[in-house]
């Protein structure tokens, strides 16, 4: 009865592990350090370079680095807990016929304090690391919304109407999601709209992602870019592809029946190949581009300038479905 004082039940007479536990502790610590070092080295150096999403762009590389570092931090935790549980199950089992209880250890304030300090410090370091890794690689490929605050170093949005490789002006690509396909619009090349995504290598790219209907998510796996396509919102993401090749675009947010089939493939090519492709496509699609709505960061599919008549007379719209009567006030 005296062993427990209500004020501090954890600091009773039996509060500390007895001497017999010290050997277990030393063994566990030594094994843990050795195993952790081995596993961390394997994770970082052997597994690390193959971790997703690869290093085909600046943002992909930064994500791969983050996953690598987090892997190295997670490994000792996993190793430690599994080792401890394994150890406990091996050595601290009930002996046959032993119906007695184990030593009444209620707690160890010093150990608890150490535990809290260590986990707390680790977590704060992780948050600091994550923040740094978010800001420096220009948002790490995640969609930053209409007002991006982390931009690729050394780039400016100098011109919305022209672009040439090697300059400071950033290449803009508009990504438009619609149930259930992606189209890409290149405002700096006359604003043509195509289903083919092509990007120049080693040039910073600004994706302006938007949607005409429901929420989609633009995920270029190899480039480490992911940005939700929201109706009526421009979501900006940056990256710099660093190697040429094929890239996969998938929709990453459930957008209805054919979500599973909403994917296509693009490619990263050299700057000169890109310029050739862009100029020829611009010429080829010129007649269509002329009739498209003027380039804007978002589109309202319910207003179609040169078919306004359709709108008012039939209640029929570009993708509006006429759910809300055209006579309804547009702004509440």
């Amino acid at each position: 009865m005296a062993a427990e004082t209500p004020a501090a039940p954890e600091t009773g007479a039996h509060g500390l592990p007895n001497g017999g536990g010290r050997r277990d502790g030393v063994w566990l610590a030594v094994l843990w350090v050795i195993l952790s070092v081995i596993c961390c080295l394997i994770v970082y150096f052997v597994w690390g370079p193959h971790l997703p999403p690869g290093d085909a762009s600046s943002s992909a590389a930064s994500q791969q680095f983050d996953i690598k570092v987090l892997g190295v931090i997670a490994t000792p935790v996993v190793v430690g807990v599994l080792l401890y549980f394994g150890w406990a199950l091996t050595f601290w089992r009930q002996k046959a016929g032993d119906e007695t209880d184990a030593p009444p250890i209620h707690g160890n304030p010093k150990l608890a304090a150490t535990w809290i300090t260590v986990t707390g410090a680790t977590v704060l370091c992780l948050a600091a690391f994550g923040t740094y890794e978010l800001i420096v690689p220009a948002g790490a490929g995640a969609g930053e919304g209409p007002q991006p605050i982390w931009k690729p170093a050394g780039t400016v949005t100098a011109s919305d109407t022209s672009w040439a490789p090697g300059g400071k002006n950033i290449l803009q690509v508009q990504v438009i999601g619609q149930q259930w396909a992606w189209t890409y619009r290149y405002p700096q090349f006359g604003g043509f709209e195509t289903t083919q995504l092509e990007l120049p290598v080693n040039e910073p790219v600004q994706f302006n992602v938007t949607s005409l209907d429901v929420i989609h998510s633009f995920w270029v796996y190899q480039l480490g870019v992911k940005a939700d396509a929201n109706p009526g919102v421009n979501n900006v993401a940056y990256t710099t592809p660093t190697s040429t090749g094929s890239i996969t675009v998938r929709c990453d947010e459930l957008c209805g029946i054919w979500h599973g089939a909403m994917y296509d493939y693009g490619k990263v090519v050299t700057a000169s190949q890109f310029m050739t492709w862009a100029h020829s496509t611009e010429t080829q699609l010129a007649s269509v581009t002329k009739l498209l709505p003027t380039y804007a960061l978002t589109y309202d599919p319910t207003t179609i300038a040169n078919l306004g008549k359709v709108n008012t007379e039939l209640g029929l719209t570009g993708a509006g479905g006429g759910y809300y009567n055209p006579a309804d006030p547009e702004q509440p």
Partner: protein
Amino acid sequence: MSLPARVTTLVIAFLAVVAGGIFVSLHFIGAQPPTENYTPYASGGEVNVTMMTTAQSTVGQKPDWVTYFIQNPATKQWVHTTYFAVPENTTVNMTILGYDGCTPLRNPVWGRVTGTAGSVENVSYFNGKTYSAPVNISTFNTYANCSVQHTFSIPGLGVSVPIASVTTLQENNNLCGTSPCDTANGDANSPHTVVKFSFKTPNGSGNYTWQCFIPCGLGYVDGNGGPMATLGYMMGQLEVQA
């Protein structure tokens, strides 16, 4: 009432309710439109399938839903269904009569003809009196010209064909008042398009969902609900039989 009698009554009542529930469920779920089987009508590695689009489905419970009809190969009657079966490894010659008006479409993707022989469709316009000379079209400008009404797309086979529309805004999108638009209803001579194309079915049996991808579901946000998501209307199933 004695306890066994009570238990028996309750169990019987319970079973009756369960049976009723199952019956209602099966009735609902099992209310699948019939399948038009074209397999026996294939010859020489080809089969001819005829379908129709209409702006409404006055034959069904959803009179305002746009819908496809399929012609029964034997009786030539129009059947309100979107299920049809064709043999494997066969060229399917599709004829689609488009009796719906146009739907403007912001997205140019669905204006392309893909997966058909020559990646083209053959279109003839009927203005109520005469047929225009058939032309082969591979790309429509769906946004500016309001030139298509629906698509016939089988994602699993890579087939996507926009159904050309007579661009008749003044005449509303109801080119015929009752469905199907046939002689019996006096609507066969309404303005419409005749769209022809052919595609090849794969080897081996399988079911392929096909549907219209142009957001034409009037009364649904962004036009992609209702008939667009319902088998028997703007969505259907192609059964390839081995």
